[in-house]
């Protein structure tokens, strides 16, 4: 188990993003989380939601650790019978998005400035009151961090953030394929030996990571300028 005094800021650690498809049954989240807990892997974020297929949920787990740790987590997740697929998209051309709602203190005097900042970050203002407004932002981790940094001086009252949701790019779905050592099952349409091998090769190919960081750098410098 992780020793508490050894706390590491997850943002300082290498991260791995796993996309899971699981049967939508009671206790499945517990089983998945248990794999990470039992092997003492720290989960940086975890988000769960339905897919377009009934009865199947999708989880995006961002874990701390390197490729070897992810490999071990993956192998152990495969052993859960409610887990239909596990895919490490870290090194794969893939999209990763977070959503945040940020409630920031604002008054008529600085409202314009805040609205402008939100606009720069492509954040939507979804609620305005006499003393506060709520901005909604989706994007990469760093983009959201950027917005948070520029809003912080005004006084952030509340913030709600999701973990990452991830999806590989292109035609290939992240829900099939990467299950090495499991090519023969007939239930698993599309998961042939060759596609397994291809998936493994894919993982070795040079990383093309799309981090939609847009204006976060600017955002940072803006903050610095204030």
């Amino acid at each position, binding site marked *: 188990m992780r020793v508490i005094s050894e706390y590491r800021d997850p943002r300082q650690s290498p991260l791995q993003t796993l996309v899971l498809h*699981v*049967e939508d049954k*009671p*206790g499945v989240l*517990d*089983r998945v989380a*248990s794999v990470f807990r*039992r092997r003492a892997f720290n989960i940086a974020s975890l988000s769960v939601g339905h897919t377009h297929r009934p009865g199947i949920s999708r989880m995006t787990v961002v874990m701390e650790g390197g490729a*070897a740790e992810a*490999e*071990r987590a993956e*192998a*152990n997740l*495969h*052993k*859960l*019978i*409610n*887990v*239909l697929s596990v895919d490490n998209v870290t090194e794969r051309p893939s999209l990763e998005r977070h959503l945040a709602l940020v409630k920031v203190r604002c008054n008529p005097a600085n409202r314009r400035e805040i609205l402008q900042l939100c606009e720069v970050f492509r954040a939507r203002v979804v609620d305005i009151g006499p003393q506060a407004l709520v901005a909604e932002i989706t994007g990469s981790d760093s983009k959201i961090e950027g917005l948070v940094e520029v809003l912080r001086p005004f006084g952030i009252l509340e913030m709600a953030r999701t973990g990452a949701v991830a999806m590989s790019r292109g035609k290939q779905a992240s829900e099939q394929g990467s*299950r*090495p*050592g*499991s*090519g*023969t*099952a007939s*239930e*698993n349409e599309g998961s042939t*030996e060759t596609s*397994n091998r291809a998936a493994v090769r894919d993982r070795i190919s040079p990383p093309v990571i799309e981090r939609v960081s847009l204006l976060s750098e600017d955002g940072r410098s803006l903050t610095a300028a204030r």
Partner: protein
Amino acid sequence: MSQKTGAQIIWECLLKEQVETVFGYPGGAILPAYDALTQYRIRHVLVRHEQGAAHMADGYARASGKVGVALATSGPGATNLVTGIATAMMDSSPVVCITGQVPGPVIGRDAFQECDVTGITLPITKHNYLVTRAQHIAPTIKEAFHLARSGRPGPVLVDITKDAQQESADFDWDDIEVRLPGARPASGVLPDELQQAVELINAAQKPLILAGQGVIQSGSTEGLLQFVDKTSIPVSCTLLGLGGFPASHPLNLGMMGMHGESWVNHAIQQADLLLAFGMRFDDRVTGNPATYATAAKKIHVDIDRAEINKNVQVDLGIVGDLRDTLLQLNEAVDECSHRQWNADIEEMKGDSAVRDIQTLPDNGRLYAAHVINDIWNLTDGKAMVVTDVGQHQMWEAQYYKHEFPRQLITSGGLGTMGFALPAAIGARMACPEGEIWVVCGDGGFQMTACELSTCAQEELDINVAIINNGYLGMVRQWQEFFYEKRYSATPLRNPDFCLLAQAHGLQTLQARTRSQARESIAKARRTQGTVVVDFRVEQEDSVYPMVPAGNCLHDMIRRPLEENPLVETAQSRW
């Protein structure tokens, strides 16, 4: 199709799964099932503690290769199974546990004897279920059996609410289709993997086979023999692998690891190729993994993908059934003699023979190793031996020569004291023929000694050898070696085991010398029913060789040569 109560469905399912014996203990939440049992021809063994039920189911499974079944009520009944389930999990034993649960409508209200047993057993089962409707019982049990025995076997728990046992539902076994989209068989060896393996094997000068329990579970003994006969590659077994390859085979080197033979550990450290067949590089086998067999390329064949590269980084990992893999390897590898390498290993034996306690003359004292050796001799090496955990377990592994699979039943992964007696009861139920010996320590015996009562009630024919050294021997050994002989909490003041067994109506014998030991063994063998033999052995003897935990595998403590252990030193308390 017919209507049955949930309780009846449980037994119908077990009959369909060809279950003949279950091990269990009744209670409120499983009462409907127990009531229905009166209508079915299934033998129920009433245990004295649910831990015993789980170990018995496990012992049954290990002895027969079939699924063992344990039954318990909710709450404390279910939690008592936990140690047994964890034991089965660590050693990949196919077990199905059926537990009662409080009625569905009161779940979550801390009802009497309610306990989240699926939550508790989540990390120690292959999978588990909570069933709240009668109609779900049959599909769940069918799935549970399938899971328990397929792929890498393991324990599965099915928790069934009392109301689900009471309500009625249709029962049609054949109509149930086990659909497990998430559970997929291993691919088996791929052509390029096979080719790579063959190249590595053909090129190796100093290859060694590490045979684990997977050899036994996949039924690969024959295949392994053929492979060895063709390639002349020497074999070493893990503790759980003993019996997977005949001890009498000239290329069987013996056990590896912490208490393995010294020449085996040296050979592993010098090998240029390790063929790990159905073993998992447990830390008791590798010593310090950073210094483990650094010169060797490693090929690892395992049914469980998660084992590949878990403890030791390998050059080639083959995820698949060992039997199929060996079949293909046997076709493809070159014939070879490895004369030089086998001669080298022979040389590594060096002074091992003179360090062997067996070579010391009878000085009137009784040594555990001698007892084991005598049991081996007098049973013609044919008995099934079920051990507990501790020094006696290691001596058994060293001095009983296991010839065939499932001959040794022992808790390897979890190292569970109290395992032996109940596991032997399970094994006895699975194998009514043949001789069974329990070998256990005086400490571990007391953990589940209540099951003597089960032996008596079921009139079982089991020989129980208590290797009585008046200590928690293995811990005492660690204290001797690593804690300057501070024997903190290891001396035992034992009951008179003979009186204890007699109180259960069982036969007993006691031995304090080598000749008494032989006589007792012979007598126990001739006697019907459970016989408990109290062997009063040398109290402060140690198991050698020993690789201290975390040391390199070749860095062993050997039995001292000049410091003759037979010299009178410690005062015997007997």
